[in-house]
């Protein structure tokens, strides 16, 4: 082969070696061996050119997620075909990984969505419950205050009853005293009437009547005294019961106040109530879910 031809081939090969695949060996005259050599070199360049274009494009496509675009091994032979298959296998492994990631992402999204709606409904229910509990606690407090006031009024009434019973007892003992003196007087009058004989007969009848009246008065007084004692005992019992009821209501009232402050949380600074806690929880979860979705 002439030096001219070799020099042409050298130039082409040097350019292609530098990565410029636009070069091919041009027609080298009529020598069949020169033509065969030219075709052989150009075939090497054609297949290498195709391989470079294909491998780059196939991997770019895989990186873009266009996994349908493969490196078709047809037209390639030996190591070229083998590498094409290797590249396709790598792209396929990428596809599997991407699908796994997408899958995991979708699962994470679903979980985040479920968490969000669960927390949403919990916090809504919590807020509703808190509102209701707050209202109930307020109602109970008012009820307890009314009940204590009623019981105190009851205590007053029973106290007044005890006082009037005492006065009745005093009045009755006075009456008893008067009755016994009256009986004594009637007795004396009877004696004096007997001594007066016929003239005192009428008076004796009156004196007897008075004595009988005095005796009846005395026995009535005793029965009144007994009844007053019973009333007083009952009043004492009623006072004890009322006092213990009042005490119980006071304690209940404190418990209710505790519930109200747990719900409202506005009694002590830095201690949020149930409704605020539910709102904080919801906001935190919303932030978390938004972050999961953004990743």
């Amino acid at each position, binding site marked *: 082969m002439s030096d001219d031809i070799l020099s042409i081939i050298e130039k082409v090969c040097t350019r292609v070696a530098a990565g410029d695949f636009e070069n091919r060996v041009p027609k080298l005259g009529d020598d069949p061996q020169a033509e065969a050599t030219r075709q052989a070199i150009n075939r090497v360049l054609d297949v290498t050119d195709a391989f470079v274009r*294909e491998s780059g494009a196939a991997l770019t496509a895989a990186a873009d997620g266009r996994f349908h675009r493969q490196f078709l091994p047809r037209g390639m032979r030996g190591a070229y075909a083998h590498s094409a298959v290797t590249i396709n296998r790598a792209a396929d492994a990428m596809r599997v990984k991407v699908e796994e990631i997408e899958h995991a992402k979708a699962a994470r999204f679903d979980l985040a969505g479920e968490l969000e709606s669960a927390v949403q409904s919990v916090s809504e229910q919590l807020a509703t419950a808190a509102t209701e509990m707050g209202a109930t606690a307020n109602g109970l407090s008012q009820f307890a205050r009314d009940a204590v006031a009623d019981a105190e009024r009851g205590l007053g009434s029973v106290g007044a009853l005890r006082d009037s019973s005492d006065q009745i007892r005093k009045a009755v003992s006075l009456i008893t005293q008067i009755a016994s003196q009256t009986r004594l007087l009637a007795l004396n009058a009877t004696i004096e009437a007997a001594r007066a004989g016929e003239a005192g007969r009428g008076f004796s009848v009156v004196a007897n009547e008075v004595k009988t009246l005095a005796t009846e008065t005395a026995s009535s007084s005793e029965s009144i005294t007994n009844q007053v004692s019973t009333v007083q005992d009952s009043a004492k019992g009623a006072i004890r019961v009322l006092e213990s009821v009042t005490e119980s209501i006071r304690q209940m009232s404190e418990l209710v106040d505790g519930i109200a402050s747990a719900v409202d949380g506005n009694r002590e600074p830095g201690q949020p109530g149930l409704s605020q806690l539910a709102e904080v929880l919801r906001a935190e979860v919303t932030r978390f879910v938004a972050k999961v979705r953004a990743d």
Partner: protein
Amino acid sequence: MRAARIQPTGVERSFEDHEIIVTKTDLKGIITYANDVFLRLSAFGEEEVIGKPHNIIRHPDMPRAVFKLLWDTLGQGEEIFAYVVNMAGDGAAYWVLAHVTPSRDASGRVIGYHSSRRRPDRPAVDAVKRLYARLREEERRNDLNASWQLLQDELAGRGQTYEEFVWDLTLGATR
């Protein structure tokens, strides 16, 4: 131009699985290089094709809409795979699965185009033939716009881009 004088003979020829048909063109589609497989299939001598527009092997069955897509895609600096039927200098036809790509210089500027073609599979060719026949019919009756619209509608109906359509056929046929 010679293509205008040649009539399709109905003869169809093919090439080997391990072969690729290669041509390079300048930015206008003027052939600057053709390999030996191209010359064999197209029944042209080298001196007959170098410096000629690539439509020298254009087959009348090829819809214009497909070439519009080819040039639009290349114009965006992207590669395209397309099923193409060509007509040789002796009137014979040969189907190829063409991969056409821009060639760039070291600075990334597009300086020409390159096409490597592989032997297509029969089922893919049959499917493409049906689509192309309808596009040609539309071009005969109306114009390029109408056939372009038909191509878009056809692909939209399949929920595919042309690229996806081609890959579906290609992988479906070889799988």
